[in-house]
């Protein structure tokens, strides 16, 4: 009896060993998907592309973190309208002192995150054709339109940092324009930098295709919160790009198209743009907002209760003088106590968790005014005054260069804290002279002036990327 038992045990053991062969090694991921199997998956993948904008590398900007936040807080804190306060932990100092090198992590992330988003939309675009017929056709076209617009937007954002100049037909190097995603050969596809002109060409091509696809598929559904790109956003994208490219007439036309869809409102409308209460149904001035999803703080470095950067005194004084909607709480806060007894002026557009407004009507009006003035179109003053009126600010009668200065100055006021200043400097004067510098001025930064000859007006191509992709050519000076 006992012996039988033992034989059984031995046999059972051996059988166990055999049975557990290959089948036991078959495991599948339960929290990840390995391929986009259905149209619903493709829809989710489009949202995944949008989700890339929520990154701290792009539009999110947690306080005191030193995140790249390359298209939200960074262009402001690198500009001359922001002063690094004594409270700062110094996490963004290398950027605001324009002292970055090719191995800088923020530069690396500002380069990689747009491409991350681009790879996601390219993946969506590759998965899409089979759904562009039948029941799913319309929705698939709408997805295509959004994906193309996202691709153009991300490439243009790269160009803004990495190109040395913005002229429409410049042969200066911009960035590679990437239109495919090949997950199997990530190490061997090594694109070269396209010229500024080439990038513009393809950006405009993608945006034109996006408009066609929107015409075929319609605007995205359920878009009251303005989280998704529609035709108006594409016009706005083109208006901004044309402004940089100095395509003045095209900028005027596109801004007009956008403003025709969603124009300026009034003082309350401006303040409401930045209100956290209206995220689900924002002011009609908002074109495209990156959702907060109860987590994103787009202005941590420059806004809220304890930012590392405060508003420079001359601009603060100007805003106080202007008044109207611009000196309202919810837009700006004056006389906040700071370390060393310094009274701080703080941007209040992002008191905390808030969506980030990528495009809105105010910018369109400023683009149109500036473009008109560049063409010596006298109606530029009308646009400027229209904006002033909508903000409750006194209208003016400027002409010529004074008018251009007034437009550019109001641009600093209207768009303060929204990711424009450094790019505007780059495309205009290329001079930074911060008004306050050093501990005595209540600033923990000591390097505060930079001229047009600074290499830093174009970001370096990141060290690691140059290493692995020898087709990339470094920007001058690095």
């Amino acid at each position, binding site marked *: 009896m006992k*012996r039988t038992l033992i034989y059984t045990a031995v046999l059972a*053991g*051996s059988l*166990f*060993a055999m049975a557990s062969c*290959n089948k*036991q*090694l078959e*495991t599948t*991921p*339960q929290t*990840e998907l390995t*391929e*986009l199997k259905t149209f619903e*998956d493709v829809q*989710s*993948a489009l*949202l*995944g592309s949008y*989700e890339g904008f929520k990154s701290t590398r792009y539009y999110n900007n947690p*306080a005191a973190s030193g995140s790249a936040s390359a298209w939200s807080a960074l262009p402001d804190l690198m500009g001359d309208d922001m002063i690094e306060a*004594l409270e700062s932990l110094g996490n963004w*100092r290398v950027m605001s002192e324009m002292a970055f*090198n090719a191995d*800088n992590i923020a530069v690396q992330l500002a380069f*990689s995150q747009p*491409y*991350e988003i681009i*790879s*996601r939309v390219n*993946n969506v675009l590759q998965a899409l054709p089979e759904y562009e017929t039948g029941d799913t056709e319309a929705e698939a076209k709408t997805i295509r339109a959004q994906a193309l617009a996202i691709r153009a937007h991300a490439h243009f954002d790269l160009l803004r940092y990495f190109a040395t100049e913005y002229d429409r037909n410049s042969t200066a190097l911009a960035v590679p324009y990437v239109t495919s995603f*090949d*997950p199997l050969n*990530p190490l061997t*596809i090594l694109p070269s930098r396209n010229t500024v002109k080439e990038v513009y060409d393809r950006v405009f091509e993608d945006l034109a295709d996006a408009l066609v696809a929107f015409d075929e598929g319609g605007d995205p559904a359920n878009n009251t919160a303005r*989280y998704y790109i529609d035709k108006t956003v594409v016009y706005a994208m083109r208006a901004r790009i044309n402004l940089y490219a100095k395509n003045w007439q095209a900028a005027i036309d596109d801004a007009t198209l956008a403003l025709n869809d969603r124009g300026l409102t009034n003082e309350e409308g401006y303040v409401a743009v930045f209100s956290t209460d209206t995220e689900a149904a924002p002011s009609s001035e908002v074109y495209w907002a990156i*959702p907060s*999803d*109860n987590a994103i*703080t787009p202005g*941590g470095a420059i*806004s*809220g*209760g*304890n930012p590392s950067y405060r508003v420079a005194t001359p601009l603060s004084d100007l805003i106080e003088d202007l008044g109207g909607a611009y000196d309202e709480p919810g837009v700006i806060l004056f006389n906040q106590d700071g*370390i*060393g*007894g*310094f009274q701080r002026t703080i941007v209040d557009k*992002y*008191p905390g*968790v808030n969506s980030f407004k990528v495009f809105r009507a105010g910018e369109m009006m400023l683009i149109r005014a500036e473009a008109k003035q560049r063409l010596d179109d006298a109606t530029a003053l009308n646009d400027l005054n229209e904006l002033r009126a909508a903000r409750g600010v006194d209208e003016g009668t400027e002409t010529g260069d004074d008018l251009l200065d007034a437009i550019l100055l109001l641009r600093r006021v209207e768009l303060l804290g929204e990711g424009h200043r450094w790019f505007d400097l780059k495309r205009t004067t290329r001079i930074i002279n911060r008004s306050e510098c*050093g*501990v005595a001025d209540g600033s*923990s930064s000591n390097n505060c002036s930079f001229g047009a000859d600074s290499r830093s007006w174009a970001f370096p191509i990141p*060290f*690691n*990327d140059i*290493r*692995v992709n020898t087709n990339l050519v470094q920007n001058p000076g690095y």
Partner: protein
Amino acid sequence: MRKFILYLTVLITISTSAAAQKAVSGKVVDEKDGSPIVGATIRVKNGAILGTTNEQGGFAVNAPANARTLVFTFVGYNELDVAIINGEMLVSMKQASQSLNEVVVTGYQTRSRRANTGSVSVVSIDDIRTQPNASFDQMLQGQAPGINVKTGSGQPGRNADVIIRGKGSINGSNAPLYIMDGVEIRAGDFSTLNQNDFESVTILKDAASTAIYGSRGANGVIVITTKKGRSGKMRLSYDGQIGTARLPENQLKLMNTQEKLDFEMNIAGNPYGWSPAEVEELRQINVNWNDFVFRNAGMQSHQISASGGTDKTTFYTSIGMYDEEGITVGTGIKKYNGRINVSHTDNNLKIGANLAGGWSNYTGTFEGDQSIGSALNTVIWALPYERAINEDGSYGESIQFPFWINPVEDLTENPNRSWQLKGTGNIFLEYKLPWIKNLTYRINAGGDYSQLEGFSIIKNGTQSARQNEAFGQDFRRNGEIARSLERRFRYTVTNSLNYKTSFGADEDHSLSATLFTEFVKNTSREFDYTAYGVLLPFDNEAGLVPGTADNGFIPVVGGGFPENNALMSYFGQVDYAYKGRYYLSLTGRTDGSSKLSPENRWTQYGSVGASWIVSDEDFYHVNFMNFLKLKASYGSVGNQNGIGDFPYLQQYGRGSYGGRGSLSVNRLGNNLLTWEIRSTLNVGADMEFFQSRLRASVEWYSSLTKGLYFSPFVPSTSGGNGALLSNNGSMQNRGIEASLGVKIINTRDFKWSVDMNYAYNKNTIKSLPNGQDFQLYKSFQALQVGKPFNSFYLVRYAGVNPDNGNSQYYKADGKTITEQYDANDLVVLGTSDAPHNAGITTAVSYKGIELSAFGVYSAGNYIYNNARFNVEYNGYTTSGFAKSGLTAWTTPGQVTNFPRLSETTEGSTTRFLEKGDFFRLRNIQLAYTLPTEVVSRLKIQGFRIFVQGQNLYTSFKFQGWDPEVSTVNNFDVNSNAAVSGAQYPSLKRVTVGVNLTL
């Protein structure tokens, strides 16, 4: 039956003895555990044999009336002279420590050290068992050459960082495999295991030794067996100790109130804008924050164990508790353990089970980071002129808020707790197959279950909650609760068939061959959430209010299946010996892993080892060297640890956008991904001199990891999150290991011994992916072909220019000095992994008194002192600041090493790179063991009392709490073990304890 014969022998002996005699009786036991020694020979000193001990170790002989001393001998034990006393004698014999008799446990089988061909170190667990450490791996430091243990954290229950013979992998795991009774366990679980239950600890280092562990053993294996019962009279033991620990001195010197205010006013430009009156007021407050954040911490441990059995069934059981307070306020661990090991033999069949359970209750704090939320950082950044506790008992607020919060409040009010429940056990069945002689079948099946519940709270109104609010996270304004539950289960089933035989003339040839199959499966489940708004007066979920879109208290829920993998293996081992002098062992193995694609899942490798006992040869006539063994081995081991469960698959992970779920590629697939293979050549010699008074061994090894698991930098333009794992590059570890043991004095009453070990490991990156020779790595580090892994990459600091107070740097050429920091001047410097490691133990004993000391030495590594950067950075003059700031440059001509404060401090320079060399007196112990006469009179089996000190002396230059920078890190995946921050000081501790055996 045997009893009767023994008795008869005794009778015969008596009858042949001379007339005048006296009766002597007593018992002979093993000194170590008190188990009876059966068959020990008893004779009169310089006289005749009187008899042997019986089954219970007892004896009753008649000695000549004039005899004063009896001599006891037994194979494998030291000869012992004992004075004859009236009444029952209790004779404790000590096992001979000659290496040849030592047994090497490899987990699957045991071999004598003589026959072993590989590189193996046996840890003398008995010498270190009583060290008060909640996590056993901490004790391994310095115990054997080639094992590098970092114990820098003094946080109770934290596991150590253990590396055997250098790091062999970049993105794969470098942690060794821990095997307890044949079952894999995790290092993190040592805090819920009881080292008092461990019987042997063996470290397997070369390929010949680890090959049978296959892919799991690529980074070395630490094999633990737990105590078995012994037949004979039941022994009941109590082991206990209590002690206290205190804070060491921080070598990073900070300013006191007077210094800080002088600094702020005279050097830093009065950043707070204090008026003279305010300065006077602040000068009256001088707070040493260490007094509030740290404390003297107690510890106690108690264990009761019992062991015994019959000749067929034996058991060992224990129950223990361990309670250790951390020196940081609020931290500590309490653990409770139970174990039962049983085995039963019946003819050809042996079955047994080892079962252990543990429960630990842990409160910790964050360490190893640069976070402003970590109390161990904020204690350093505190202002000495601000109060920790106000006169009314409330926690002090700071002018630095919200960039700084009170660490005392944080530690006291907002604890991080966890509870671990762990059950581990195995059953085995061994059957000597009756129809083929010497053929044994064995099955060992074991499971390891652990359940970790984590809990943390930020109470409403605390500075931490207000900090989150101040930084714009409004939904965190009223505090939060996070709870997580992780359950892991691993089972291992091993079948083996062993055949042993001897043949040839005089049975000169002996052969042992074993075939194994093994299956290991890991699974786990995890769930966690963070909920906001702790508005009701409860410090648990009852305190939460429901979340609405309005109040924003929307909980975040996570979870999943962190582990889901399996490993299937078939392997065999052949050991051959000729004349007990020539040994050869071969292993071969095939492994299949679920972590790799079906096409690349299986791999084969093996090892060969040989040894030769030269001193047994007829031609060997070296008198002073009584033993010489030469050995060599070569073999390969695969690795697939630490690479995640599905590294070969392209994966889409979840996200959200606008309240809707989203999918995006979070890993690029690599169908070609296969095994990382580490091949090791090992040669060595074991030597014994002067009748084994001096023992030495030397080993040299060279290992090469090929197909290195490496996440190459993916061109940004390729997307896919840049997450790709590939087999690329290679890395070499080469080193020598030496150990030396000397019995300087070895008389009956007085003994003095010294044991030393030393290891040198040189790590070299041989190649990187795609023909690259360089790649940036973690913060401040880079990988370069020809240089060691974890080499620093910094600009060399060249002091301060006395004329203008500017920092100066060396250009890349190393000669030119510039004041301009330039990334093009970054150079690859030394490594953060110490190449030199040594341990030394010495013990002096006189009769029952023993004094032993154990020290460790480590040298050749560098640490980036980020903690110092944070108190020397020019932007942080408003926080606690390093004393060195008083020497900051202010006037032309001033010669100093601290640049002017108006210059932005560059981080990536060698100004903050420091050497990590240290010597530490890790343990010193004074013990007294009651002599056997007294013990037997007291009717007990043994009694020992000891007092010991841990880390009482450490010599180091590193400017921090401790030169061993912990690799434990909580948040930041990009942070680096080589970078200091939020150090939990290691403890200086004194304990007293007793071991009592009844």
